[in-house]
């Protein structure tokens, strides 16, 4: 295998992993935009997506496509329940209190998942076989990588359409800009928040499901992916959608190229060093605008 083929392999790997980070980062962003909080239960959405998928496909032998959408809906419902229950009824609406609330909820969800599924890592069958595909420029992938790319791109396009063209999407953007003003013009902020949680749940589930055939899944797979996705969101500019994609891809590529070319022992360190560097130079992230304070 010559050097250019190696590089091609690192890039393909980095892009796939980056795509997953990007979807996770999107989930963080949607809730942030609607509520201003960081939702730590996002990690659990990822694990739950994978575990729902595993239960349906492997344990109950349900058709793959049905399982996919059922799991998505299931996790979206859990997301919605989190909002209807604890988040909406929290007596303090302080951002920091709500963030702590999501940490607690995340522990509850993880603990419950552990009781339900146990602690073993389990495999989920690939969406369409595992025969390797050789790419033209060098590098090899499995069909699941194509699924990851395709689904990520599709999700991004749908999100773009949703936020730019639909009334609900516009209402969500309006709420992100100014909750009070949005409420004054007749947008139901509660409904927007509810919707954003369900939406994030579905996105987290998608991330968990498309990666499961490659990485296997367990009650706590989401922690690592969630952390990396969070880092990707920060890198790109927290709350910024294009930034989430960029942040995810950059982080994925840094890890993969870092492991291949510099040192596999320090690949995470390399990735997070770049993250810190970016935040030093541009504290709002690559695409972030920062918050305009009215004086």
């Amino acid at each position, binding site marked *: 295998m010559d050097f250019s083929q190696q590089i091609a392999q690192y890039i393909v790997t980095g892009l796939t992993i980056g795509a997953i980070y990007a979807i996770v980062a999107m989930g963080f962003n949607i809730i942030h935009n609607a509520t201003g909080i960081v939702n730590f239960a996002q990690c659990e959405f990822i694990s739950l997506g994978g575990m729902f998928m595993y239960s349906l496909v492997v344990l109950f032998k349900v058709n793959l496509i049905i399982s996919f959408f059922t799991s998505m809906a299931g996790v979206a419902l859990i997301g919605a329940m989190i909002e209807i229950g604890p988040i909406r009824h929290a007596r303090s609406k302080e951002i920091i209190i709500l963030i702590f609330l999501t940490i607690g909820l995340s522990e509850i969800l993880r603990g419950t998942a552990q009781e339900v599924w146990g602690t073993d890592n389990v495999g989920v069958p690939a969406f369409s076989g*595992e025969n390797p595909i050789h790419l033209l420029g060098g590098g090899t992938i*499995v069909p699941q990588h194509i699924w990851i790319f395709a689904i990520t791109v599709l999700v991004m396009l749908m999100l773009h359409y949703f936020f730019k063209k639909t009334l609900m999407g516009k209402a969500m953007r309006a709420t992100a800009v100014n909750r009070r003003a949005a409420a004054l013009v007749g947008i139901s902020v509660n409904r927007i928040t509810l919707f954003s949680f369900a939406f994030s749940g579905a996105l987290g589930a998608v991330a968990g499901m498309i990666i499961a055939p490659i990485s296997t899944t*367990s009650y706590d797979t989401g922690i690592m992916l969630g952390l990396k996705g969070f880092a990707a969101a920060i890198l790109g500019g927290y709350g910024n959608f294009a930034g989430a994609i960029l942040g995810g891809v950059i982080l994925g590529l840094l890890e993969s190229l870092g*492991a291949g070319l510099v040192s596999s022992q320090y690949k995470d360190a390399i990735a997070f060093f770049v993250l810190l560097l970016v935040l030093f130079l541009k504290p709002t992230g690559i695409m972030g605008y920062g918050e305009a304070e009215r004086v």
Partner: protein
Amino acid sequence: MKKRFFMIVVAALTVSFLMGAPFCYSAESIKIAGIFALTGRAAHIGTSQRDAVILAIDDVNQKGGINGRMLEMVMEDTESNPTKAVMALKKVLESQDVVAIIGPTLTGTAMAMRGFIEKEKIPTFMHSGGDVILKAPLDKNDPNSLPKWTFKSPYKAADAMGKICQYMSKHGIKKIGFLYSNEGFGKDGLKNVKVQAPKYNVTVVAQEAFQPKDIDITAQLTHINAKGVDGIIAWTVGPAMGIIAKNIKQLGIKAPLFECHGAGDPIFWKVAGEAGEGVMMPSTKIVVGDQLPDTDIQKKKIIDYVKAYKEKFKHEPGTMVAYGADAAFIVIDAIKKAGPDRAKIRDAIENTKGYVGMSGIYNMSPQDHNGLSMKDIVMIKATKGSWKLLD
């Protein structure tokens, strides 16, 4: 009304007290602590070792306990995390009167607990794979300050590595790549391969690390493959065992894959799926008990134990179960011989000679707190969802 309620409560308390009394006042049970990785990334190992220990304790208690006293296990979870492991250890020692400890599961947690165990002087039989537990001096300035109270049941990782290298040289594999998880166990493996490989004329031409929770290891494998290796050793336990097998298949790497002595577990098939086919690894004999020659003195013991294990837990035991079982049986034997006295139990464990266990024949000594040798290890090959004994 209030008074009546009070009377009912008093009555209920009295009845429950009387019912509980016979149990409370029989000979007090002997307590040992079981500290396992019940959650976290090594949970699959920790839980099967816990099951192995439970089976051993049930066995003793059904036969009437030790001198009429039941054996009781106080269980704690390390969460596969060194800090939590030390907290669990302190909690057990402060709240319970235990005579010995079985566990923990991971080398990292074992290293974190070791100093405290030596200070508290409590005999501890660990299941962790890494040799550093017994080899690394407690005091950095004094190379002779080796642990006195710590034992471990898995054979030395160095011997497992030696077994792989021996097998490789026998089958013409000379240039290898070494892939290790970037934590205690993996780094221990890296040290071992550098010592063992040259003994068998095997050269490590590439070494790569990965994080235990990584979801993709193709970058490292691409790098290794570019060096033209004819064998790869992957030193890790957990989901990465399967990810590596899958990634190797994806990249079309032809070099055979060898994994560590912890891979021979049902979890391997769960994480690797079909990609696991053909992966080779050193193992205890427990997973290939029925394939052993009849002359093997462990065979009967293994087959009986596996039968009891399957009856109770309804699944096949993995290679790690052997370590849990051996640790428990040796500690129980020591308590039988020495009585519930920490120092005497320690001496009894150290004097274990010729004990036929699931993992091999244990011959302990003050210099060797493990007691197994390379002879006790077999090479196995993952074949059709099960294991095949190699020559």
